């Protein structure tokens, strides 16, 4: 790439990319014996089960309804008998409500179009698209799992003029979006068209980092056939895939503190979401499966799997030829933003993008030493915050200072902690500060 590459201007880091599974085509994982479906798979209120113990369900049948406005429907990813509706352990080890289904066969709802043909023509109008997206339980596939239909309905007085499709995948190791762009490029572009129709915007930009030249070329080639869609190659820099960073990089617009992208006329959706929108609108298929990368330096076969939601992580690791002996930590997500798993029985959910097996040697944290005010964390913070100050404020319980210094703007990208030469768990304290300040703000509103 020649010339100045587009990127965001504030902070950022460049960790080793380690995209080990970039050349592994997406494989369809066999069905699990038992599917565990947690009710809290999306940002916002958890869903409410509407099936009973012993019910027979089909693939794609609605099994849980949205539990509030910011919430999503959940459909059965498998066919079989509902074993129990009980508390199941989630990724953090806490027991939260969920549905366990014993898999029997693979019987789909008749209304779902399972043919492989690509359906170009968009028959639904804008309102129907939003209704369909809501009904099929779509959430943001980038990891934040914000219900998609909410993003498609700008608040009154706000108009979107740009749709951004996030194909950046700036997390090291993860390749699920990369493979999806290579293998389902056409579907993603149709999905983008559908989203454009729903939002009534004329222009869409697909942002892809320069470390995926094959995906850039492929999507560029296909995009010629679609009016208004353009591909924007971006410099490799973490966290380019952050919503606000992507807007700054691709459109040079800055989202004000505490505001949503719609404030500057943008809506950002992940490529995975665009694909899910295509399937929901054109094929009437709810969000029941997604691409998950299983990777790590010691993994025998780094792979990308098309997995049904509810499949235990253990099965994914087995499919990648087992757990390496040197594994020290199993991370749900990428190495920067992912959270370590407490058990291998936890299932894949709508927001899982990867399973990273870290070796013992690379997973250990270095012992913490005192802050020397080198300000490296401030330098790399993509939101322009002062992580050392916020972390200290949260540590000593001065949440008033943390709020004043805009802790709520933190996107939890982890750049500060990655850079810190004193190995201070800055992000841990920032997360503590965020949750406490969030609670204080909510109480104030009441």
């Amino acid at each position: 790439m020649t010339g100045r590459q587009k990127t965001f201007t504030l902070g950022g880091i460049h960790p080793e990319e380690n995209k080990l599974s970039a050349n592994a085509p997406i494989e369809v994982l066999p069905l699990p014996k038992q599917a565990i479906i947690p009710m809290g798979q999306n940002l916002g209120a958890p869903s409410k089960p509407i099936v009973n113990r012993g019910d027979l369900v089909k693939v794609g049948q609605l099994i849980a309804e949205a539990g509030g406005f910011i919430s999503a429907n959940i459909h059965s990813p498998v066919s079989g008998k509902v074993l129990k509706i009980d508390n199941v352990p989630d990724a953090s080890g806490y027991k939260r409500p969920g549905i366990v289904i014993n898999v029997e066969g693979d019987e789909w709802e008749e209304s779902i179009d399972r043919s492989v043909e690509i359906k170009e023509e968009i028959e639904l109008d804008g309102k129907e698209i939003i209704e369909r997206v809501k009904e099929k339980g779509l959430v943001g596939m980038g990891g934040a799992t914000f219900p998609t239909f909410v993003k498609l309905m700008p608040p009154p007085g706000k108009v979107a003029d740009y749709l951004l499709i996030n194909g950046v995948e700036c997390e090291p190791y993860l390749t699920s979006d990369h493979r999806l762009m290579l293998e389902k490029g056409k579907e993603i572009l149709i999905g983008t068209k559908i989203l454009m129709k729903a939002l009534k915007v004329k222009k869409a930009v697909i942002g892809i980092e320069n470390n995926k030249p094959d995906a850039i070329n492929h999507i560029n080639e296909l995009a010629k056939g679609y009016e208004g869609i353009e591909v924007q190659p971006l410099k490799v820099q973490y966290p380019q895939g952050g919503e606000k960073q992507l807007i700054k990089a691709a459109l040079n617009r800055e989202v004000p503190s505490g505001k949503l992208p719609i404030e500057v006329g943008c809506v950002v959706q992940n490529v995975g979401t665009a694909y899910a929108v295509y399937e929901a609108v054109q094929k009437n298929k709810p969000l029941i499966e997604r691409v998950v990368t299983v990777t790590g330096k010691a993994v025998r076969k780094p792979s990308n799997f098309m997995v049904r939601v509810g499949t235990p992580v253990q099965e994914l690791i087995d499919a990648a030829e087992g757990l390496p002996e040197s594994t020290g930590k199993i991370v749900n997500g990428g190495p920067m933003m992912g959270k370590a798993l407490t058990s291998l029985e936890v299932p894949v959910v709508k927001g899982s993008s990867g399973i990273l097996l870290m070796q013992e040697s690379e997973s250990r944290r270095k012992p913490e030493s005192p802050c020397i005010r080198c300000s490296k964390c401030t330098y790399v913070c993509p939101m322009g915050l002062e992580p050392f100050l916020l972390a200290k404020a949260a540590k000593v319980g001065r949440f008033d200072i943390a709020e004043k210094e805009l802790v709520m703007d933190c996107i939890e990208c982890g750049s500060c902690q990655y850079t810190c030469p004193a190995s201070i768990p800055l992000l841990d304290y920032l997360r503590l500060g965020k949750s406490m300040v969030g609670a204080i703000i909510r109480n104030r509103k009441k």
Partner: protein
Amino acid sequence: MDNIVIIAVTALGGLGLIAAVILYFIASKFKVYEDPRIDEVEEALPSANCGGCGFPGCRAFAEATVKEAKENKSIEGLNCPVGGNDVMQEVGKILGLEIEQQAPLIAVVRCNGSKTNSPAKINYEGATSCAFAHALYSGEGGCQYGCLGLGDCVDACDFDAIHMNPETGLPVVNDKCTACGACVEACPRDIIELRKRGPKERRIFVSCVNKEKGGPAKKNCAVACIGCGKCEKVCNFDAITITSFLAYIDFEKCTLCRKCVEVCPTDAIWEVNFKPRKPKLPKVDATSTKEVTTGKKVVETAPTENSKQEQNKEGVPKEENKE
């Protein structure tokens, strides 16, 4: 020369006099009456400014007591837990009121998930903050109700009364406890409770706050309350209630008969400062050999194939590229 001196003295003296007169009238016009007893009460208080009484500091408490005494002729409900009965009697004397004797309280840690009773399945390396760890995951031993052992209660204590026991990984309260309640507030899992100190410091309490059913609770901790209800049946004084698979002993009703301690199948009920019983073995504490065996069983159910493997738990794993 003399003239200048006289003029200066009279001018300045006159100015001072006028200012004094003005100030006198202003002072009497805007006078704020403050009950002298507030100062006296404040003097009697321990000046720890710990907030244990529910007021921001001793001065605020003194103001509140004097106000309450003036309005209601009683200061019921107001108590300085740090000063205890002695201080409250003195406060009563200043205010001319009879103060009822209050039973002294002490902070009690209701968790026995020590390293042997609830062995670590995962290894936590994140920030040393219970509040953060509580938001992040269920705990090293797997119990989502149990003590995280990161010492938020120790940090909160102003009286040097609570310390971590490095062997068990649990906090221990000593005699310096004034029942100010700072640790109760600090614990994100509501494990610490203020209970009556009891006669001769004798106490009986359920050392568990796990609300899970028996099976899952026992899976993570050998000494968890499984909600079997044996103690509830054996108690003659209706002091024990079981709600969501967890027994709770009401210290107001408990007569310290120790029957419940004998029947508890998981040793979840603790007796403190009693003389050892004659026919039976003395009550074992957190680290007994019996529990180690049950503890091993838990290790086997750890999620990874390889038993030496450990999973870390931390907010964002830091990648180390150079090995």
